[in-house]
C-alpha cells in the first residue's frame, strides 16, 4: 500500500490540506502519514498542534475511514526537513502541503517551508490553496 505524507498545521490551511489528502488517499487507495513537528526553539509556535488539536485530527481521520498514522512531537530538524524525511522513509508517492502568500522579506528572514518541500521532494507535491 502506498503512502501519502501530509504536512499539517492546526489552522484552516492545514485542514484544507488534510481534506485534499484524504480525497487523494481514497483515489489512490493509499494510507496517510500526517506530520506535525516543532523545534521548540520559540515560546509560541502557532504551527504546532497541541493535545486538543491532535484529538480533533484523529477524529477527522477516523471519520474519513482511511488508514493513517501521525508523527507529532518535538524534532531536531525544521518542519520542512521532517516532512521530507517522512516522505523518504515511507517511500511516499505524494506529499500534500498547504501554501499561502508570503512577502519576499518574510521569506528572506524566516525561509519558506513550502518552498523547501517543493524543491527537494523525492516525489510529486500537491500544493493546496487557502480555501
Amino acid at each position, binding site marked *: 500500500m502506498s503512502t501519502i505524507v501530509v504536512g499539517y498545521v492546526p489552522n484552516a490551511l492545514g485542514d484544507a490540506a488534510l481534506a485534499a489528502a484524504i480525497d487523494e488517499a481514497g483515489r489512490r487507495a493509499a494510507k496517510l502519514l500526517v506530520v506535525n513537528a516543532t523545534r*521548540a*526553539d*520559540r*515560546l*509560541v509556535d*502557532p504551527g*504546532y498542534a497541541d493535545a486538543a488539536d491532535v484529538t480533533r485530527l484523529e477524529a477527522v481521520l477516523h471519520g474519513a475511514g482511511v488508514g493513517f498514522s501521525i508523527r507529532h512531537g*518535538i524534532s531536531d530538524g525544521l518542519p520542512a526537513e521532517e516532512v521530507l524525511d517522512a516522505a523518504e522513509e515511507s517511500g511516499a508517492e505524494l506529499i500534500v502541503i498547504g501554501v499561502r502568500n508570503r512577502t519576499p522579506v518574510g521569506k528572506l528572514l524566516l525561509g519558506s517551508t513550502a518552498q523547501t518541500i517543493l524543491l527537494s521532494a523525492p516525489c510529486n507535491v500537491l500544493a493546496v490553496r487557502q480555501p
Partner: protein
Amino acid sequence: MDNFYALLEGFSVAMQPIYLLYALGGVLVGTAVGVLPGIGPAMTVALLMPITYSLEPTAAIIVFAGIYYGGMYGGSTTSILLNTPGESASIVTALEGNRMAKAGRGAAALATAAIGSFIAGTIATVLLSFVAPYVAAFAVQIGPVEYVALMVVAFLTVGALLGASVLRGLASLGLGLFLAFMGVDLMTGQQRYTFGSPFLADGIDVVLVAVGLFALGEALYVASRLRHGPVKVIPVTGGWTSWMKKEDWKRSWKPWLRGTFIGFPIGTMPAGGADVATFLSYAAEKKLAKGTHKKQFGRGAIEGVAGPESANNAAAAGVLVPLLTLGIPTTATAAMMLVAFQRYNIQPGPLLFEVEGALVWALIASLYVGNLMLLVLNLPLVGIWVKILQIPRPYLYAGILVFAALGAFSVNFTPVDVFVLLVIGVLGFVMRRYGYPIAPLVVGMILGPIFESQLRRSLAISQGDPLALVSTPIAAGIYISLVVIFVLSFWMKKRQRLMESATLDDESPRGKEVSA
C-alpha cells in the same frame, strides 16, 4: 510652587517632537522586551548603553525611562495570555490574569492591567514629582556617616531580601564588591585584585559586567535548558473598545487606587522593588473582596489583576525616588539607569536636582508622556506583542550576543574587554544555573566605590574610630529602620509562602474541601 514650574519647564523639553520620538522608541522597545521572558529592561538598558553614547544625556535618559516603564506594561501581557510572566513583578498577575483569559475574559484582564498601570503610573509620577525634591532637600544635609548607613541598608536589603536565599544574595553582593574594588585604589595608588595584569589596572567597566551577566549569562542559560514544547496563546476576541464592561470598571477602580498607594511607598524603600508590592496588593484585594467576588479569587478575579498591576507600576515610579535623590538603586534596572547617568558624568544624589535640574524634570515629564503612550499603544497592539513571541530563540539570542560583543568592544576599543565579557558571561550562567540573584552583584559593583570613599571619609573624620559610624542620630535611626525592615520582610516572606501554598492547595481536590 517652584517645583511645579520646574515640572512645566520639564514638559516643555519632553514635548519637543524629537524627544517625543525618543520616548516612543523607548516605550516600544521596553514593551517588547517586557513581553519576552528572560529579556528584561535591565538587560536592554545595558545593551543599549554603548549605542546611546552618541546621544545627548536628555535623549538617552528619556529612552531608558521609556524602556523602564514599558517593561512593566509588557510583562503583564505575557502573564495574562501565556501564564509565563515576562518579569518577576508580573508573577502575581499571572495567578488571576491567566485564569481570566482561560475563561474567555482575557480582553478584560488586559484592559484592566493597562488602564490600572496608566492610572497608577500617573499618580505615582505625580507623587514622585512632589516627594523627590523634599527628599533631596533633606539628603543635602546628610554627611558621609549617614551615607554609609544608607548604603549598608541598600546592600543588605538588596542582597539579603531580593532573592530566595539570604546566603546566596550576600555571596552575590560580595562578588559585586570584589569586582568593584578591582584596579588602582584612588587614594593610595596601589593595585588591588589585578593579579599583576595591566589590563585589570583600570578595573572592570560596569557595562561589561552588566552586559555579561544580563545578556550573555541569560543567552547561555537559555541555550543550556531542555527544550520545552511551545505554549498556546489564548486568543483575544472582540474589538479593544469593548473590552471593559461597566461591571469591570466598577470592580477595578478601587484596586487600582489601592495598588497605587501600596506600590509607591514600597518602591521608595530600599527593600522594595515591585515584586513585594504586587504580592501585598494581591493579598489586600483577596482580603477585601466580598461574597461571590471572593470566591472568584483563584478562578480569575479581576481585582487580582487590577491591584497588583497598578502596584507594580507605582513601585516602578517609587524606585526612582531613592535613585534620583540619594543615588541609591534598589533594583537591577535602576542600577543600570544609575550607570547611564554616570556615563554622562552626572552623579545622581542629593545635588542632582540643583545641578542637573533641567534634565531631571525633563525625565520626570517624559514619564508622564511615556505612560500615556503606553496606554494608547498597548491595547490596540496586543496582537503585535504576541507575534514577537514567535521569533525563534536562536535568532533572538544571536542578535543579543552580537550586540553584547559590539557593546563590550566599544567601551575601550580593546579585544581584551570582549574576553572579560565572556568570562563574566560564564559567571552569569553559573549564577543563574545555581540560583544566585544577579541584582545584588550589580548594585554592589555600582555602589561599591562610592561606599568605599564615603566610609574612608567618615573614618578619616573620626580618626579611625568605628563607633562614629553609628553615633549620629540619623545614622542610628537608619540602622534601626534596617532591623525593622528585616523583621517585617521575614514576616512577609512567611505570609507569602503561606499564600503560595494555599493557592497551590486550592487546585487539588483536598484543598478545596479545606477552603470551603
